[in-house]
């Protein structure tokens, strides 16, 4: 019998039952074909490794919602055109939504929201549909502050006054809001913020009653790039965050120290006028002052107009979780004495539950809100 063709040897590796027995018998008894088969199997294995990847777990509900929007608009646009081309690119918005990458790199512009530690993790931009962790050290925060020309406290939000403006290295940022203030009840907080405020019905041991509700009105901020931003000069990005409501719980023993915070806010969004998304990203990430590891993480995010990065100090442990079916990020300090979970639901509401509690308790509370 003639030696076996490479193509058949290749299939033998994948689909042995599809190859005639005489081929298998020949390979078993032929040193040349056997060696060749091993060589081919080695290449196959190498290729398989190259194409292997961590398994992406996309959110099908979000994807379907997105596609539904496209189906609706494309059908409306179709009119009498019944044979559209097979390949259809999504239409670009006239004012492109700005990527989180750009937003995070700006840091400073990442607006802020609620004046609590819980809310501090919720700041920043865009039309995100889910959350992901991004490691952010103090030194990187300082580098961002230096790079943008803003004070440290502004890089994660927390503008010192409700209205104002500040000069950055490459432009100016102006912001406006009203100060955060307490509300007398859940109903009042919900009415003021225009948000549904859901609270857990079962609280973990050690958590007392709601101590106060805090309402943070909507915050608007605009960055206008000056000529030092080269191709971005004259462009502007408008950021819109909040409103938000935080329910603060006291300890069960009556201490005044808050043990649990439940925050709800509208997802932050941003719009750009002038520069394209790619121009903004390219500019910000190429600035020499941008911390390289942070820039790398931002690139690794992949997108994203749809991702809300949750800044995480390097010492905090991070785990991805599902909260009522929605992807979330669970953070815990090394001793597991304090934890937080952040997620976004189908209504575009971003939630955070933060407590001096272990991860299990925090997740239990979160699941009651989802």
């Amino acid at each position, binding site marked *: 019998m003639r030696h076996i063709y490479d*193509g058949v040897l*290749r299939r033998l590796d994948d689909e042995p039952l599809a190859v005639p027995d005489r081929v298998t018998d020949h390979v078993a008894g032929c040193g040349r074909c056997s060696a060749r088969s091993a060589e081919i199997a080695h*290449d196959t294995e190498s290729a398989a490794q190259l194409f292997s*990847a961590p398994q*992406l777990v996309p959110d099908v509900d979000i994807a379907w919602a997105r596609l539904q929007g496209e189906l609706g608009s494309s059908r409306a646009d179709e009119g009498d055109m019944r044979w559209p081309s097979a*390949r259809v690119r999504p239409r670009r918005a006239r004012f492109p939504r700005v990527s989180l990458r750009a937003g995070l790199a700006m840091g400073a512009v990442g607006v802020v929201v609620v004046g609590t530690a819980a809310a501090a993790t919720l700041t920043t931009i865009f039309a995100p549909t889910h959350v992901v962790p991004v490691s952010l050290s103090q030194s990187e925060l300082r580098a961002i502050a230096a790079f943008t020309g803003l004070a440290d406290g502004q890089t994660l939000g927390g503008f010192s006054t409700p209205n104002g403006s500040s000069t950055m290295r490459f432009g100016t940022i102006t912001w406006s809001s009203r100060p955060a203030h307490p509300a007398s009840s859940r109903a009042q907080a919900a009415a003021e913020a225009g948000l549904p405020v859901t609270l857990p019905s079962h609280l973990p041991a050690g958590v007392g009653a709601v101590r106060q509700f805090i309402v943070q009105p909507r915050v608007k901020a605009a960055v206008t790039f000056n000529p030092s931003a080269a191709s971005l000069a004259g462009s502007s990005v408008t950021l819109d965050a909040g409103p938000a409501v935080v329910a603060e719980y006291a300890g069960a023993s009556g201490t005044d120290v808050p043990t649990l915070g439940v925050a709800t806010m509208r997802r932050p969004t941003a719009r750009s006028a002038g520069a394209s998304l790619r121009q903004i990203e390219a500019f910000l990430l190429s600035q020499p002052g941008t911390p390289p590891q942070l820039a790398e993480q931002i690139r690794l995010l*992949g997108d994203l107009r749809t991702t809300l990065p949750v800044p995480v100090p390097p010492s905090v442990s991070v*785990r*991805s979780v599902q909260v009522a079916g929605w992807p979330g990020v669970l953070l815990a300090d090394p001793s597991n004495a304090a934890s937080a979970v952040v997620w976004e639901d189908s209504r575009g509401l971003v939630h955070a539950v933060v407590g001096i509690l272990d991860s299990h308790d925090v997740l239990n509370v979160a699941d009651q809100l989802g």
Partner: protein
Amino acid sequence: MGLQARHNERLERLDDGCGVAAFESFFRYHYLAVVRLAQSVVGDSQRAQDVAQDVFLAAYRRFPGDYEQAAGWVRVATVHTALNVLRGERRRDTRELRVQVVTSLPSAEDTVIERERRADVRRVLRRLPRRSAAVLVMRHGGMSYVEIADALGVRVGYVGTLLRRAESALRKEMDRETHL
């Protein structure tokens, strides 16, 4: 009934809502596989999801009300659409896949190695002949020899030959990348 009339009839059926429900079911069943297939080519998750979006939108229009026929088509369309995206870009080698489910933040070293490996694979996929790139992605994306043969319009017996040549070329090109 002419093709155009049949197509219009299907679209009308689609408009009554039943079609959308059927399409949603089809979408949910195949979405994950399509995104992963696209991801194996384009690298990052967002572009993979963009590819999937395009493919399902095209399937919706191409197979109105008759999605069972579209199951194989979406995978082939995904491979070609993803390769089009890959070959249309030249500057994204530093952007890499993000996995939404993570157990911890990856170490910097792991991230760098993984990123370089994926960038190498994408560069090689751009350089390989189109059919070789397609057969590699299809096979390592889980398509059978019969499905690949249908997709490429060749005999089943020829798929092994194409695959062998493609994997051999892949190895050589990857060696070149490593020694550049």
